[in-house]
């Protein structure tokens, strides 16, 4: 098994674990962590694609690396926003739950 295949499989496992966590766990904080695991898997897969130099034919392809860095920034910003929302929610309600009944409340202007 080549290194690229090994890393690719690792990425696939991370994506599976992250996706499972994001869908199954009810707590927002766990979902946020799962999102980051999932994102890590995607970036790893992208990195493996860069290592293969797919399409371009040389040893390492710099384009996916640039894309990964942009993706990391986006994922970081998303995590920060989600964490800020969780903190605000905890301050106001004392719990962090996004349970189903939330949608049934009054709709304000």
């Amino acid at each position, binding site marked *: 098994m080549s290194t690229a295949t090994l890393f690719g499989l690792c990425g696939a496992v991370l994506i599976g674990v992250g996706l499972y966590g994001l869908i199954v766990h009810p707590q927002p904080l766990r979902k946020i962590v799962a999102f980051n695991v999932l994102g890590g898997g995607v970036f790893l897969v*992208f990195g493996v694609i860069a290592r293969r130099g797919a399409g371009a034919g040389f040893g390492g392809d710099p384009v996916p690396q640039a*894309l990964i860095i942009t993706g990391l920034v986006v994922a970081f910003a998303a995590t920060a926003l989600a964490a800020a929302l969780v903190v605000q929610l905890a301050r106001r309600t004392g719990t962090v739950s996004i349970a189903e009944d939330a949608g049934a409340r009054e709709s304000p202007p």
Partner: protein
Amino acid sequence: MSVAAPTPGGVLLAFALFVPVAGLLVAMLAGGRRSEQVAMAVMPLTFAASAAAAWRVVAHAAPLEYHLGGWAPPLGIALRADGLSAIMMLMTAVVMVVTAVYARADFRTAPGAPETRGPFTFWLLLIGLWAAMNAVFLASDLFTLFVAMELLTFAAVPMVCLDGRSEQLTAALRYLLFALLGSVLYLLGAALLYGVYGTLDIALLAARMDGAPTALVACSLMTAGLAAKTALFPLHLWLPPAHAGAPAAASAVLSALVVKGSFFITLRLWFDVMPRDVGLAAAQILAALGAAAIIVGSAVALRQARLKMLIAYSTVAQIGYLFLMFPLAYSAEHGGLTGGAALAGGAMQAVSHAFAKAGMFMAAGLLYAALGHDRIADLAGAGRALPMSVIAFALGGISLVGLPPSGGFVAKWLLLSAAVESGQWWWALVIAVGGLLAGGYVFGVVMRALALPPAPLVLQAAIPRRREAAALALSLVAALLGMTALLPIDVVHIGRGSP
């Protein structure tokens, strides 16, 4: 299709993107007291750039193209506006400007009053949303589309919780989690496509697409991710609390524009990236989900006790219509999705829903402000107290139902004729039933609003005429948009290879 050269006038596209982003930065530095003034200065400029770009595309019947920094794709980033982008940019520009007129009363900092977070955030987010929408419409590669889509999400989620109440925070968090799942699936699909074809440029990808299994997996992942962001049934659960809970001006742009952003990317993906490889079966799945959205969304809307929740569920249903176009645009002789009546119908549906829904949410916000509640059962007398708002709601509703001469009528007519022409009569049935259900919930509200109140109505607040006029203007556009079908130009297909 190969990489196109920059066209004269392409710099207009850069302005449509650069002006709101620059405005965002200036407004951030200027602080809460001046963010409204900055927005008032930036929005007309952005409107002018968007309208000029759209006009050039239509007048020359050719797409505009601009290469940032003079670097050609695939290494550089190109901005490209075809007919579809032009329509969407114009739609966004009109809804944004009218929303700003409407929102000034809600998000104003009086001279001398202490600076508050609400107005500051709202105006920043509104300009940011516009920049992100334009980026979505102009991007010409899948990664720029990803970044644009993320900008859109980051601007839209805080719009949901502007007042900071706990149920708004819950709705915003759910929205964000759905959106994040969507974006990471999209990114994974993009990575796989890059792995197979070595490019993310839409034109280059379309030329290299060969139906490899990896490409199909990639496109499925991206479509699933985009469906979560567009709130396609059964991934719609985040939408009603998020859109109904936001302040009215925010609800209007969220429901009218933001869901169209991820839908537009779905269109790009299905029509431009994989035109030859998509099977009719895959398109039928999308349409089946759309049909379920129409039926379930409309049925749940009928049972809502509150006006804003009703409008939000109606958005779920109307999004369903957008997805009906995919199998209807399938052409057996081309072996893939082509434009034609189905694409024109889908575009018309997106635009007319944007105007109608923005007008309806604004009207609902005014009714709430005047009556102090939005319980549909207690709306009696509203028709006399706020006639313009009730008319705005009704005119928007006419477009949702699909009565002539509204945009919704032309959209449904085009989709119906495409369904009959391609022998897929079952979608015609769904369109008809959806129209009936929409008639039920719209006229249910209008009838109650026109009824005589048991006791004279005491208004909680005086509603300025200007705000009612803003809502009415948008609804009126939706109700008369069908007239554009008489124009002798075929804007939707500008810049598309085969009709």
